[in-house]
């Protein structure tokens, strides 16, 4: 189907398919998304055979989240994100909020672990994850005030005009920016969406989770509003590097501010409702967590 399509419809098809190719190829993306896909797909198979399949809605959340993160990072979308401020903001909305919430809402750990082939490598990874080397930094970053500070702080850090300027000019810094947003999103939303009971497993209490969401959302809301209202150009790197298509710089900035402001706030409220529901049903299902 893909071979010599010289006629019109064929070349249109090829044009569309080429949108799926990465703008800048990254081994990191291949390694991360490849490993996650193989482990999860294998885990789904193993668990289905063992008679304890992954709930369908959970696997749908997982694949949607993974596909979304891949699309914004490793397809033509990344090109537009590099050369249009508001698309860059959509990219970070996807990485820091939507994809991370979907992936952590899927509670993928059981399937990922089941998908890991048995053997010494699996034991070694399990030992590593339990070692103080991993556990200590993990507990530190998941300490609620730190988690809030890192979550909101990263947004402010990468949107500081001088830092944003350099990050868009340097490929290693650009990758660091995107991956730090994605990984922080996963950590933060796992803290919030961890399905284990606070009473039995010692996870963060539901009331505190709501407070954490609130504390992490408000600064971003303020920053988004500030960008929308800013009368002067804040991010002239897009002027300096050229935009993907001609658009008034101020329109780009206002749109980018809106995407920093409204959708993340909506996502925050949505997750708050989910946590609130669990808080209200706390006594009903303590200790009985659906898979």
């Amino acid at each position, binding site marked *: 189907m893909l071979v010599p399509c010289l006629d019109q419809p064929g070349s249109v098809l090829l044009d569309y398919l080429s949108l799926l190719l990465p703008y800048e190829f990254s081994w990191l993306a291949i390694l991360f998304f490849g490993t996650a896909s193989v482990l999860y797909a294998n885990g789904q198979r193993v668990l289905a055979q063992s008679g304890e399949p992954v709930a369908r809605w959970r696997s749908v959340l997982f694949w949607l989240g993974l596909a979304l993160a891949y699309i914004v990072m490793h397809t033509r979308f990344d090109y537009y994100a*590099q050369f249009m401020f508001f698309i860059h903001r959509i990219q970070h909305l996807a990485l820091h909020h939507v994809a991370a919430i979907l992936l952590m809402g899927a509670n993928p750990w059981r399937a990922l672990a089941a998908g890991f082939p048995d053997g010494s490598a699996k034991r070694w990874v399990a030992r590593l994850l339990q070692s103080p080397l991993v556990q200590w930094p993990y507990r530190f970053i998941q300490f609620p005030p730190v988690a809030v500070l890192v979550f909101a702080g990263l947004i402010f850090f990468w949107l500081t005009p001088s*830092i944003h300027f350099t990050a*868009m*000019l340097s490929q290693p810094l650009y990758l660091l920016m995107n991956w730090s947003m994605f990984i922080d999103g996963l950590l933060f939303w796992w803290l919030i969406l961890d399905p284990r009971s606070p009473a039995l497993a010692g996870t963060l209490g539901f009331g505190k989770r709501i407070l954490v969401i609130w504390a992490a959302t408000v600064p971003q809301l303020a920053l988004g509003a500030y960008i929308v209202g800013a009368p002067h150009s804040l991010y002239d790197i897009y002027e*300096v590097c*050229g*935009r993907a298509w001609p658009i008034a710089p101020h329109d780009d900035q206002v749109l980018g501010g809106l995407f920093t402001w409204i959708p993340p706030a909506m996502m925050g409220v949505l997750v708050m409702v989910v946590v609130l529901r669990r808080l209200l049903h706390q006594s009903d299902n303590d200790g009985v967590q659906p898979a």
Partner: protein
Amino acid sequence: MKTLPLACAVALALLITACTGGDTDWTGSNIEGVMPDLEFELTSDTGEAVTEETYQGKASLVFFGFMNCPDICPGTLQRLSTAIEALPADSQSDVQVLFISVDPARDTPEKLNEYTGFFGPQFIGLTGTESQLSDLVKRMRATYGYGEPDDNGNYAVSHSSAIYGFDAQGNAQVLMKSDQPASDMSHDIELLLQRS
């Protein structure tokens, strides 16, 4: 526990300093080590195939644009011309401006030659095929795009507005903005020549 947030703050501060440089006295932004060296395959305004090696030995100021550009391009080139004229007479020929047209459909080498000649002997027009230009702007982490043509077939082109300064060996040094005053440009060009 209390020392850790402090340690993080220090680490962040160090990262910021490392990112923004600050040890060189540029009026533009320091891009040494941030951006890649100069490397390209293009066509010169005399119609010859050229690479970055053709232009080694002199400090280079690279600027992307197009000839139908109503304001930014001619304004920037004019300011660069003023900035170069303000340099000491014996160093004016140590710098060259590579004006790279990203509108090869309209800007032929002959037209480019005539256009750049207007700004001074240091100005060289370059252009290339779509893929040559795409490779170069991607390397410089920049882009360009075309607007919809009007009834007369005229269209706008969005392009990078930066002036990238390279030393005589082609190492990235400074990024100037097109709206910087000529005196700032002159200052940075002089610094660039000292480092070449």
